[in-house]
């Protein structure tokens, strides 16, 4: 299979007489592509850019600062996925707050946050709702469950985001040329492939939904190059074993029940209209900012000095172009969010890129 894909890729790439820039939107794809050394198998004129698909990385600095302020409140327990712990804000990180005594529960599933609220009825349990369309339904479930159980001590501090608006924002900005998107597999499991139709049609940019094994990604790249060579821009689905055209409709219904679209702030990309999810008024009791009004305040959240995460998330520069990369900024001592998360582009380059011929 690999040999065949490789030959196809060479064949189609040869028919294009310009450099192609393809963006892998999803952080898991970035990591998988690096781990397998995929970049070294690409023809000269095919380049991979990493995009804004690492949920922790695109979470704005002021969100982190708000969370840190929240940990200082009496009787608050923060429940979160583990990868949020080390993200640095201007007020430190959750890891530092925890070392100083903050009550932080790291969960594998949002379900555990609801269980914690039941168990610790004297605490206000706040779940950090960070993630894209794949994670948002699981968090929506917790709000529904809390409402059914009438749990007065559970809420979500919601910063969920939706992927295609960010992809469109990148294309609109024209800051970098993007010839095609390797679209996130598990976002698409929930949403279906129709999510990207407007990108292919309005922006004339090919989209291929890809699975997570290196061969999947390699094949998706080949399909994109073929679309470019043939002058097509369509949504194709390489990951048919998981992604159906209509997606997971039960998850979509749950999302629509609990959340509604809102404008959202992305690290590096700024505010993108309609790119976030907020909790509907019907479930306002479960929105953390209604329990802790200070979460609604605007905070200045400057990026760490010298850190180029913003540009990296937009595909404008690569980590090697950041003066802090591998020097002041390493996974053991991360300065920016892109180095913290194990799906972050800087972390991926740190771990794998030095050893690889082409980045």
């Amino acid at each position, binding site marked *: 299979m690999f040999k065949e894909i490789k030959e196809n890729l060479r064949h189609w790439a040869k028919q294009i007489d310009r450099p192609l820039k393809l963006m892998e939107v999803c952080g898991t794809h970035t990591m998988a592509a690096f781990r397998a050394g995929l970049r070294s198998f690409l023809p000269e004129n095919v380049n991979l850019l990493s995009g804004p698909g690492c949920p922790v990385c695109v979470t704005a600095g002021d969100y982190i600062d708000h969370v840190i302020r929240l940990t200082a409140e009496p009787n608050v327990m923060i429940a979160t996925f583990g990868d949020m712990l080390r993200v640095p804000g201007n007020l430190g990180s959750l890891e530092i707050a925890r070392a100083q005594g903050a009550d932080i529960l790291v969960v594998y599933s949002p379900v555990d946050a609801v269980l914690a609220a039941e168990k610790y009825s004297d605490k206000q349990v706040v779940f950090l709702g960070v993630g894209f369309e*794949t994670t948002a339904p699981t968090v929506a479930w917790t709000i529904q469950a809390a409402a059914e159980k009438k749990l007065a001590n559970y809420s979500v501090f919601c910063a969920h985001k939706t992927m295609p608006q960010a992809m469109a924002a990148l294309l609109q900005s024209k800051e970098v040329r993007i010839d095609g998107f390797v679209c996130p597999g598990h976002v698409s499991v929930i949403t279906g492939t129709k999510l990207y139709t407007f990108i292919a049609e309005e922006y004339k940019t090919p989209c291929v939904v890809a699975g997570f094994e290196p061969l999947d990604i390699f094949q998706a790249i080949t399909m994109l190059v073929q679309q470019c060579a043939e002058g097509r821009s369509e949504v194709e689905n390489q990951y048919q074993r998981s992604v159906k055209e209509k997606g997971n409709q039960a998850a979509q219904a749950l999302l629509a029940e609990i959340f509604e679209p809102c404008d959202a702030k992305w690290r590096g990309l700024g505010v993108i209209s309609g790119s976030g999810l907020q909790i509907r008024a019907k479930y306002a009791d479960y929105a953390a900012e209604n329990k802790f009004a200070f979460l609604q305040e605007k905070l200045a959240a400057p990026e760490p000095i010298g850190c180029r995460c913003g540009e990296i998330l937009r595909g404008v520069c690569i980590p090697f172009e950041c003066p802090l990369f591998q020097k002041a900024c390493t996974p053991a001592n991360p300065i920016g969010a892109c180095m913290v998360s194990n799906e972050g582009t800087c972390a991926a380059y740190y771990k794998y890129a030095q050893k690889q011929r082409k980045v």
Partner: protein
Amino acid sequence: MCLAIPVQIVELEGTQAVVDMHGVRRPVQVNLLQNPEVGDYVLVHAGFAIQKWSEADVAEYHAIMEEMNAMDEKAE
């Protein structure tokens, strides 16, 4: 965050299932699936099954993995 490995449902009660992840049993919510059954292969994200895989899907996955393993062995 995305674990793209199919796991099998070994127990089921209402919307609560137990899956077998390489010998480790884990609780999983299956409320996002239509008609989940014991024996189904599912894709799990953050403690929720988000999609069922058919036998053909599982076979495709194993074919891909076999090919990649063979490549690794060759490279070693």
